[in-house]
């Protein structure tokens, strides 16, 4: 069970941050209270009972050690108990305060309300009900002690008669007031939290399903691309090659010029088929892996344009297929962007293996852009694909100083081979 009452399990730092915020909120409120009380005390002749001023001050002060304790906790269970301890200290102070205000006169009930709400909202069931029980117990004890005269009854307010001396009045206070209100409140808060948590869980499940679906879709899409590229290459391409071979075997019967012309047309069709297949999914990637494919990409870029591509990478065992194809698409997309928009002379493509991740970086010496400028669809799609596997795409550029696209994909590298 999560530490947020019935809410979903949260991570420790997040939980700590929320607890610290509530402690800070109390500190500010109580600090203000103390200052105002002090000002009133000094500037008016209202006779304050001094403890009425001191107790909020003590409450204010204990927020400091508890803040320290909360920050030090490393496990959620321990954190919950520290938090519960803070509530216990709080209700002891509140009880004292309530006693000073005229506890048995119902007004005391209102002072515990926030503690009961908070405890049941933030703490697991055990601690939540424990705090609620303690509140009921302490308040009832206070009323009873005043009733039997073990402690003096005080009252800030003008009350007709002395109702606290009446047994039926005090029983009503305890049963209807303390037990009734606090138990109901605790139960209600826990119910709401449970509804909230189950909705959250459902939402988280949906998100997970959606992410899984996208992943499957990507895999299916990649599979489809591979199939189409293979078919283009292996079926259509081979048939064209066969036509060319058959034509060549007929050379003796054809005028040389015509044969050459037809041969050129076939060559063009073959080139077109190959370029198309390659742009869908390079077969090299499946057959030989990322490094040769990147070399080929660099080569093709240099063959087709004046852009110079420098490759920096170490030969490594093959990466998982999904990562290879993702990184290759990233390089393809980034280089294509450089070619189209950057007016660059050189582009540096680096593949590095860092702890826990593979990093591909594509840097150019072109005109650059402002990173906030709208990005092309290709880059957006790439970002989505990379984020889906838990990686990230970082783009940095300043106008006039080239640009860098850095793609990080999580992958456990074997450190022994990483010398």
């Amino acid at each position, binding site marked *: 069970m999560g530490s947020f009452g019935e809410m979903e399990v949260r991570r420790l730092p997040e939980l700590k941050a929320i607890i610290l915020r509530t402690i800070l909120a109390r500190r500010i409120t109580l600090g203000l209270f103390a200052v105002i009380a002090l000002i009133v005390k000094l500037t008016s002749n209202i006779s304050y009972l001094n403890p009425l001023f001191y107790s909020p001050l003590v409450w204010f002060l204990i927020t400091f050690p508890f803040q320290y304790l909360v920050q030090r906790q490393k496990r959620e269970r321990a954190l919950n108990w520290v938090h519960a301890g803070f509530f216990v200290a709080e209700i002891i102070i509140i009880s004292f305060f309530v006693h000073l205000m005229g506890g048995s006169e119902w007004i005391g009930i209102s002072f515990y309300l926030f503690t009961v709400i908070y405890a049941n909202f933030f703490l697991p069931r055990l601690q939540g009900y424990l705090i609620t029980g303690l509140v009921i117990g302490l308040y009832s004890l206070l009323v009873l002690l005043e009733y039997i005269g073990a402690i003096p009854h005080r009252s800030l307010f003008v009350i007709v008669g002395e109702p606290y001396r009446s047994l039926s009045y005090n029983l009503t206070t305890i049963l209807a007031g303390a037990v009734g209100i606090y138990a109901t409140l605790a139960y209600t808060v826990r119910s709401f939290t449970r509804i909230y948590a189950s909705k959250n869980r459902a939402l988280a499940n949906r998100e997970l399903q959606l992410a899984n679906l996208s992943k499957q879709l990507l895999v299916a899409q990649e599979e489809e691309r591979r199939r189409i590229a293979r078919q283009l290459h292996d079926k259509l391409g081979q048939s*064209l090659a*066969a036509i060319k071979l058959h034509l060549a075997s007929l050379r003796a019967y054809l005028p040389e010029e015509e044969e050459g012309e037809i041969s050129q047309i076939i060559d063009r069709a073959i080139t077109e088929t190959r370029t198309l297949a390659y742009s869908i999914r390079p077969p*090299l990637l499946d057959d*030989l892996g990322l490094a040769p494919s990147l070399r080929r990409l660099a080569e093709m870029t*240099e063959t087709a344009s*004046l852009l110079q591509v420098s490759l920096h990478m170490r030969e490594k065992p093959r990466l998982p297929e999904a990562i290879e194809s993702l990184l290759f698409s990233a390089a393809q997309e980034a280089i294509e962007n450089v070619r189209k928009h950057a007016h660059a002379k050189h582009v540096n493509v680096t593949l590095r293996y860092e702890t826990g991740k593979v990093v591909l970086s594509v840097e150019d010496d072109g005109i650059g852009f402002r990173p906030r400028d709208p990005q092309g669809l290709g880059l957006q799609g790439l970002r989505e694909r990379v984020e889906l596997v838990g990686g990230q795409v970082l783009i940095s550029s300043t106008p006039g100083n080239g640009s860098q696209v850095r793609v990080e994909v999580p992958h456990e590298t074997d450190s022994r081979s990483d010398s």
Partner: protein
Amino acid sequence: MKQIRVAIADDHTLVRAGLVRLLSSYPVIKVVGTAKDGAAAIKLAKDEQPAVFLLDMAMPQLNGLAAIPYVKTASPKTRILMLSMYDEAEYAQVALEKGAAGLVSKTISADDLYAAIVDVAQGKCLSVKKPLTAREREVVALLADGKTNDQIGSSLGISTKTVGHHCQRAMEKLDIHTRVGLISYAGRTAGLNRNN
């Protein structure tokens, strides 16, 4: 020239038939058999002991690359020439590493295929050819026009040293060892390049 006994393995029927037809038109070449997968290729090598085996890289049962050692065992004197739809230098490199004498694209011209078979039969290995970059092609084309490195540098806006570097790279890629050779290559291909 002594007749060269050639075997062919390719799963694509039309390609296989085309190769048989084309190679049969050369009197020097005798096609001794065909196979349509890796397993059949090994048996064919054992039975016929061909001088050159044209082995398709992508075949069912046993692909061409994986079949190389078996073909070599079945017929130790056979030289293997890999066939592929993919003519990337990377594939050629792998083929050489696996023990083939070279790799040719199925889209190669008839004369080049013939030359490759003859070379391989004579015990040579085919070099791995890398395509020229756009810049290298520019430099080579200007060389064909009879320009000096200085002139080429100033017309392309690059340094003379860089021009020399591009020439060097182009020569390495084309397996040409002298500047004269490069110029004559440039002259031969100049018309072709302009047509493109």
